């Protein structure tokens, strides 16, 4: 089992969800995040003083999957989120040792899906 963490552009969420659905990945969790990467920020100004905003709004997705779903999930995210422009984001894969479904107490592969 793996945990896939992906940072994507906020406005891409719908497309990514769509792509994941097609890859039969229906479970996920999403958080707001601020990201700082290769993408340069933009300049706001407030009352004449510049603000360099280099923490840009991103979404963080967290998806726990069984091994066989790792590749399809990554592909789906890439497909949904890629625009080819800097700032598209990254995907991280972490090992997941245990997974418990709170409602039933089920564990492991069963619980992830």
């Amino acid at each position, binding site marked *: 089992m793996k945990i896939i963490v992906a940072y994507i552009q*906020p*406005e891409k969420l719908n497309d990514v969800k769509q792509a994941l659905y097609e890859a039969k990945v229906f479970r996920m969790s999403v958080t*707001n995040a601020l990201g700082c990467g290769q993408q340069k920020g933009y300049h*706001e*100004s407030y009352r004449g003083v510049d603000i360099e905003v280099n923490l840009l*709004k991103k979404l963080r997705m967290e998806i726990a999957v069984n091994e066989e779903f790792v590749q399809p999930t990554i592909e789906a995210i890439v497909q949904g989120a890629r625009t080819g422009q800097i700032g598209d984001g990254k995907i991280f894969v972490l090992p997941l040792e245990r997974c418990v479904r709170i409602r039933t107490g089920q564990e492991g592969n069963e619980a992830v899906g």
Partner: protein
Amino acid sequence: MTRRFPLALIIVLIVLATSMSALAAEGDSPSPPGIDQSKVAMDTVWVLVTAVLVMFMQAGFALVETGFTRAKNACNILMKNLMDFSVGSIAYWAVGFGIMFAIGNQFMGTTGWFLAGADNSPASGDAYVGVYNALSWASVPLEAKYFFQLVFCATAATIVAGSMAGRTKFVSYLAYSVVISGFIYPVVGHWIWGGGWLAKLGVLDFAGSTVVHSVGGWLALTGAIVLGPRLGKYHANGRKKTSRAIPGHNIPLAALGVFILWFGWFGFNPGSTMAAVPDIAHIAATTNIAAAAGAIGAMLISWLLFGKPDASMTLNGALAGLVGITAGCAFVSLTSAIIIGFVAGLIVVLAVLFLDRVLHIDDPVGAVAVHAFCGVWGTLAVGLFAQEAFGGAGNGLFFGGGFKQLGIQALAVVSVLVWCLACGFILFYTIKALMGLRVSKEDELKGLDITEHGMEAYSGFQIFTTQ
């Protein structure tokens, strides 16, 4: 910076206006003998107090439009509302007021620019001598007339901001604003209130269901059409387009806006007497009860249609009732006011659905439904519900007055519709050609606050900006 050039236009306009008018002989009007000073004072107090209430409606519009749209465009909408009032104040002083009320032809006034025409207000009636004779019936100083009429003009202008929210270039909006305040609105005003051809025919539009609200509403419609819908608003599903909801980000602000508008409307309608006469009590009562009935109507029909009483529709319903009663507030009974308001509440919900689901025209705050559709209804309603006993303007169809008044009202509705659509399309397509009307796709996604004004409305708040 090159695309900022249109600004030059505005500056030039202001400078020009300023200097021209500085040359004109300004000064205060020595009061001619035979004026009832006490009546003048009282009427002036009334006109100013109500004008100020109407001015405050700008805040109401700003909040309604802000609350019903997304957080990422909030500063932009507020700026639009602030600036259309600001440039409108100048444009209407420079040319609008003259076009609307000064001596001219059936189509428009052609004198009295910069408020500098001859005028011996507050002398009124036969004692009046001056170029603004369409307002000679009001016994208040000229500047009270200007200020009162200005805030009405600003209302018409600001309505359009709502339907164009979230995708319009700021500079283009400013350009549009000058034209409506300085020309499109005053011309209609001249027709109906300024002694023009519709006034001659006997159109009854007490406080402006047509003059103010329909004008704003129809222009809002053309703006929304020329712009096209916001990104993501409609989803092409094969041949069929489906509509997606883009929820407003701050319903409490929008609700406060509606309360402020309701409050301000007690300036709008009762103030339109421009005199402290007892009729204002009747007008205030019809205005209030129509708004109440409008809210109830919209709540009930949204409950029936969607299974739940929709808050944003109900808020629109109150405004619908207010727009609906605006033309007839002085001419109809309280009972009729309830019916007019209630029907307006039904109309607004159906119109929102019709525009959104059938025509796929994206009007984020319902400006067209509220102001254009209910403005039409209100104008026609005078032809149906007017009673001789109120305001002395004759009976409508339901009270034995026959179809005549209704026909005249319909003519006014249609003429204004044609004028506004024509002007609106010409204006918006011209702006589109000259300076562009819509922001880029990227800017729209990022939000106009950052891209057009370089700032955020809610700094520090964590907001999902997935749409």
